């Protein structure tokens, strides 16, 4: 067993364990930090799978930007753990979490993946000969970043342009939310 496979397994197990640890934390900041750890481990796993761009983007965007929002909000609200006591599970919540577990199990098995995610097998997991509709597979020879870029800008052009509108909507939404009358709790500048 070479080091790469061993590291991958260790990272995978650690990520799952840390996720379980995350939901049992008393302080929300601890949970956020643990989640950052999980994201970093995921990035490492992406790297070991030769998805180099995804690994870098995972850390820069997910661990370095999205988690910053989480951490900022948690620190903004500054709530002590006593005020965050959970008030008990409702029936609806139990049903939804059960559904979540079912979906997770399905996604983890080949049958489930085939059922839920047709088409994903063709996305870059094979060579360009067997998936000719792709300009270039993301795992083709050469630099991963360039391959991802080629795939994005040629094959997924419309998705790319639509992303800009998605981001625009998010920008407007964020400003509207934080600028509502009375949303300013400015104790300090």
């Amino acid at each position, binding site marked *: 067993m070479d080091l790469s496979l061993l590291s991958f397994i260790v990272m995978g197990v650690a990520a799952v364990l840390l996720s379980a640890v995350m939901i049992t934390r008393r302080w929300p900041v601890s949970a956020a930090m643990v989640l950052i750890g999980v994201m970093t481990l995921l990035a490492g796993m992406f790297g070991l799978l030769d998805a180099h761009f995804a690994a870098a*983007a995972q850390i820069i965007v997910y661990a370095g930007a999205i988690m910053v929002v989480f951490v900022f909000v948690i620190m*903004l609200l500054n709530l002590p753990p006593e005020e965050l006591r959970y008030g008990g599970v409702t029936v609806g919540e139990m049903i939804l979490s059960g559904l979540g577990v079912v979906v997770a199990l399905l996604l983890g098995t080949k049958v489930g993946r085939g059922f839920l995610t047709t088409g994903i097998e063709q996305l870059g997991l094979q060579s360009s000969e067997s998936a000719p509709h792709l300009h270039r597979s993301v795992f083709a020879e050469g630099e991963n970043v360039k391959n991802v870029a080629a795939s*994005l800008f040629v094959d997924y052009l419309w998705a790319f*342009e639509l992303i800009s509108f998605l981001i625009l909507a998010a*920008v407007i939404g964020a400003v509207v939310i*934080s600028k509502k009358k009375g949303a300013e709790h*400015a104790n300090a500048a």
Partner: protein
Amino acid sequence: MTASINPYLPILIAFALGLLIAGGATIASFLLGPKKPNPAKLDVYECGVTPVGTARQRLSVKFYLTAILFILFDIETIFLYLWAVLFDELKWFGIIEVALFVGTLIVGYIYILRRGALNWD
């Protein structure tokens, strides 16, 4: 003959060594320093006077807005990096494509500028 190891191995080694150094410094300081606690030293520091109020106060929502806007523009930057590495291959098709993308985001930027979301923070 060039040697080839997994490119992420150096990161792992460097992380372990860095942790060793930083952790070692912390532990060394803990072991080497005297221990003379007294209440004044251990209390909250507020310019030498006794603290007024707790640290549990709510802060401005501007931080949240800054962080959210950071995410959105960071995502845009990442996509632009993808385009930049393939600049020569994509030629004008790529430039126009990205111009539309950036254009939409500039509209968003002008919106937040005029809305005053970037003010006083």
